């Protein structure tokens, strides 16, 4: 049975993102400082002060999607960065060393901001960037939250955010704008709520919006949180997906199996697995990854709410909390099976996956399969091996549904 590929949505982030990066590249000429940030760093104080922000992780994912990441990773390895290190970091450093990028590259930073909520890798990666560019590096230490962050940990992060504000005042030479921060936080919160609503549309049967739609539409949420254009973008996207629900318009016509994607996408081979499962009538309807950015903030308590939201990113949570997040999504989205990306580059995301798989399977009765790959290093991805494993999994799903 051949099934047509998922229909494309009319709203897409490409124009918005291109304009955003073009503006960032112009920033210096316009006297606006540029900061490089980790994917889940507290951007809101920077937005409130009008700093232009760009995301090396986002850039690395784009390099992977354009199949340029291998060469860039190798360039970093030539400079002494081990091939076992995170491929986003290698890709980013390689792009700097080679002064090459398939997407015009990032404008040179004036300062760097990292947060350890994803991993300790970003701490060390940004130290390397700081050494290379000779620019200040502000690091926000977000202690591992386990089941829930301790009050002392929240206070610690709030104090670091206050230090960040102090740094911005000194660096920019003007007082911090607390009103603008509240507005930015409110905007980021609305975008987070809308993004959550968009992702929740995948609960409809058949799903009008997939996990992989989520991966291509999350870029503004990652890179442009706190801007008004982001909020309006997700409002338009949500409206379009709502229309499709009304029309019973499926992302995958003939959807038979509803699947869950676990982990960072394999950017360097993004479509191979969804295309493969599509042939079996399988559709990825949800992921925990895209949901990571669907967090809420409070303009009444901007710093406290930021501290709490940024500390409870899934990679900063215990195995038990992760299992419960997975269980909720799997149940809400009526999922039949899950695919877990064991990502060589991502230790906090991958090292506990065997236990996570066992817990989730045990609690939901939904089976899963683990595939070995890497987000942007194509050397760690074997198409044959992954295809065989996923096909076996799909055949088993099909057999059990018939039984």
């Amino acid at each position, binding site marked *: 049975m051949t099934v047509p590929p998922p229909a494309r949505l009319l709203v897409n982030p490409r124009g918005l993102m291109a304009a955003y990066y073009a503006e960032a590249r112009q920033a210096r000429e316009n006297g606006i400082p540029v900061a490089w940030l980790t994917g889940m760093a507290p951007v809101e104080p920077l937005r409130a002060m009008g700093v232009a922000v760009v995301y090396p992780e986002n850039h690395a994912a784009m390099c992977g999607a354009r199949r340029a990441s291998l060469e860039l990773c190798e360039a970093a390895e030539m*400079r*002494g960065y081990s091939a076992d290190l995170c491929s986003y970091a290698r890709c980013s450093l390689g792009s700097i060393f080679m002064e090459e990028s398939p997407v015009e590259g990032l404008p040179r930073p004036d300062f760097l901001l990292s947060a350890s909520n994803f991993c300790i890798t970003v701490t*060390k990666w940004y130290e390397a960037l*700081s050494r290379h560019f000779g620019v200040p590096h502000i690091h926000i230490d977000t*202690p*591992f939250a386990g089941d829930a962050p301790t009050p002392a940990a929240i206070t610690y992060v709030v104090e670091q955010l206050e230090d960040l504000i102090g740094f911005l005042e000194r660096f920019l030479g003007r007082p911090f704008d607390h009103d603008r921060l509240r507005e930015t936080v409110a905007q980021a919160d609305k975008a987070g709520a809308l993004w959550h609503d968009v992702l929740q549309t995948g609960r409809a049967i058949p799903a009008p919006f997939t996990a992989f739609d989520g991966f291509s539409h999350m870029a503004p949420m990652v890179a442009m949180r706190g801007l008004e254009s982001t909020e309006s973008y997700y409002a338009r996207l949500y409206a379009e997906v709502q229309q499709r629900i009304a029309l019973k318009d499926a992302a995958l016509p003939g959807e038979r199996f509803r699947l869950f994607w676990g982990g960072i996408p394999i950017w360097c081979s993004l479509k191979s697995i969804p295309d493969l499962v599509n042939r079996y009538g399988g559709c990825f309807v949800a992921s925990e990854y895209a949901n990571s950015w669907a967090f809420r903030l409070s303009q009444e308590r901007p710093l406290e709410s930021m501290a709490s939201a940024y500390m409870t990113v899934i990679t900063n949570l215990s195995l038990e909390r992760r299992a419960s997040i997975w269980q909720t999504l799997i149940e809400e989205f009526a999922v039949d099976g899950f695919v877990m990306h064991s990502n060589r580059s991502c230790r906090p995301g991958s090292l506990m996956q065997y236990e996570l798989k066992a817990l989730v399977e045990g609690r939901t009765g939904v089976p899963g399969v683990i595939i070995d790959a890497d987000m942007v290093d194509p050397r760690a991805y074997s198409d044959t091996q992954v295809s065989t494993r996923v096909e076996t999994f799909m055949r088993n799903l099909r057999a059990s549904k018939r039984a």
Partner: protein
Amino acid sequence: MTGLLNPKVLFDASLGRLVQVAGDPYSWLRKWKATSERRVAGCLPMYVPEEIVHAAGVLPVVLASSVGTTPLADSRMPTFACSLVRSNLELALRGALDSLDGIIFPYLCDATQSLHEIWKTACPGPFVHHVVLPSRLETPAARTYLLEELRRFRAALEGWSSREISDRAVWDSIDLYNANRWLLQRLYASRRTSPGLLNGREMMAAVMAGFVMPKEDHNQLLGQLLDAMEQRRHDTAGKLRIVVSGLLAPNPGVLDLIEQAGGVIVDDDLFNGARYFAGHAPHAPGPLESLASRFLNMMPCTTKHNPESGWANHVVGMARGAQADGVIFLLMKYCDTLAFDYPALQDGLDRAGIRHLLVETDQDVSGMAQLHTRIEAFLEMIRSP
């Protein structure tokens, strides 16, 4: 007992004991436990404030031993974690850590954090605690947070041991641990001035015996060893002075190779070496403040946020201070923080004109022959002008 007054006999006896304990720590621990009422808590490297554990009447044991292959661990965790993490999981799943009543994880990196989570389901026990240490050291906020985290740790230990841990008890433990650090520092100082009195393997054993033995007994052995060593001389003419850097040497085999190739080890910054006993817990308003001060003033470490390349500069300084002819850098495979900081060290050593060699280590010793050749070639290169 009079025989022990002979320095040679004393030296051999105390060193022999240290080497024996370090050589098979968990068998030694099993025997010790059969004669003791005390509970035992395993402490993952690095930086668990052992003094608080000791003050609870519990024996803290540092879990720094590696095993060859890790088939049991590999079924619970992907293989892209360092040998230390996988070895500990393997040892626990094999039952080799059965003497432990509890286990304590310090926050160190993504892999140890993940190991803590896996441990809770794979090896559940009555006391599995994560001390979530800060990764920044340079701010007042980090100190405040750390103190709260140490108080939380103390309270958890009180709950588990069903006894109050008084300030007095922690101070007593601090005194004991400071004495231990001072003895080991003296041992290392003697190596810098007259290297080779103990070879690399013996020196590592002297440190690692203290990872399992009660510090009271360890201090006594170290004291005897130091007394006996004062009489000794060792000829190191023609030997190249080598500094070993890294986080942990998974096995002492690499140290043997350096010596076989004509090197003598003069200093290191390994956790199963100088890093473990660096600094001391100072006078402070309270014992936890004292422990926090020691932690925040630690020997620069790649696992912490290091503005200004603090770690690389430290290693360069150590090599200079030890008048090293070369630095051998042990990169534990899959240790992200070491691997990220390595290029900065490379630059620093190049600028200082100090030769260096990168050795990637895993628990697996199968590549020893090749490593032997590389280390020989490195020392040969230093010798040739």
